[in-house]
């Protein structure tokens, strides 16, 4: 069967919110708990024009949050969700990046394949009754991203 060439990716640019954030899509579970964090660049500076999408595949719930001036994104997610499939977008990212937000440390093949330091970048910590998960694009504590 013919294999077509995939359309290449391009950055979302700085103005994506006029198209992608016209409505609030950040509540995967309105009754759930807050999951928030900072999106940080290689200097530790906030990425204030980024966007995070999460997919709670087990419950088939999806959400999207832009980042604010501090680089903060926030969602309301199921309290007992295990892992959220995650995409990160930003100006300066020519292709979005895929990661996974674990709300608790699971005994699964993905985490088992990583070294302890890398594994720690994928596990959220409990904070104020919800979860905190920072995303670092670069540096010694850079979040693990997965090949597309």
């Amino acid at each position, binding site marked *: *069967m*013919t*294999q*077509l*060439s*995939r*359309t*290449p*990716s*391009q*950055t*979302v*640019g*700085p*103005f*994506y*919110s*006029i*198209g*992608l954030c*016209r409505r609030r899509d950040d509540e995967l579970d309105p009754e759930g708990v807050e999951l928030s964090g900072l999106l940080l*660049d*290689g*200097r530790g*500076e906030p*990425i204030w*024009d980024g966007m995070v*999408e999460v*997919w709670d*595949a087990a419950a*088939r719930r*999806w959400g999207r949050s832009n980042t604010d001036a501090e680089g903060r994104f926030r969602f309301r997610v199921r309290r007992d969700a295990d892992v959220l*499939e995650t*995409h990160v*977008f*930003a*100006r*300066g*990212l*020519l*292709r*979005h*990046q895929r990661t996974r937000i674990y709300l608790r440390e699971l005994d699964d*093949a*993905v985490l088992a*394949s*990583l070294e302890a330091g*890398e594994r720690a970048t994928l596990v959220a910590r409990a904070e104020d009754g919800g979860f905190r998960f920072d995303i670092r*694009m*670069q*540096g010694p504590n*850079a979040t*693990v*991203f*997965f*090949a*597309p």
Partner: protein
Amino acid sequence: MTDPYDGPVVLPDDPSLGPEVQVDFPGYRSTRWRAPSRPLVTLPEELHALDGPVFGESAIEPLDNDLTRQHDGEPIGERIAVTGRVLDDRGRPLRGALVEIWQANACGRYRHDVDQHPAPLDPNFSGAGRCLTDDEGRYAFTTIKPGSYPWGNHPNAWRPAHIHFSLFGRAFEQRLVTQMYFPGDPLFPYDPIFNAIRDPKSRELLISRFDLARTQPEWSLAFEWDIVLGSTPFEQ
């Protein structure tokens, strides 16, 4: 030591580098601190076949696919139809795919607080639309042709005219955000974002085709652009 990110824009033109976009492309300076610096990790097979979010008609409002009719008056600019098909990499149409677009107005200005380009805003143009693909995988928008605009990447930097596209297929891995360009744009050779795609043939995949058959006499021009997402690892 020379920081390659401070140097002139150097454009790759080497197909042997592969078709993909180079995420740490030095010519596009914002990549410097944002592109991942560590190698990407490969996921187990079953996570490559993950079903993705699916959006229904409830995601769409009646005038979402006509950017020329979202205000009381008509926007200034060249009216255009932009249509095409969303396919997987085996050529199968992806139906019910959510397509979201956003763009500058005819003067090259976005309706966004951060955009300070001294070109007029158009009170009749928001520059955003969305639709779902039909059973043939087809999407259709009516809009106006966006203008080129300057940006701060390097001295006298201008973006070729483009429309931003965001797509969800059926599989999680089919997610794509990209930009559609217009044929014959004189700015192509100078744009680091366009040229961050390493293979010149792949860059052409982002250029729409003038579509005489869909022009409307005395009314509007038309462009056609097909989008190919990754593979569908399961039957729809």
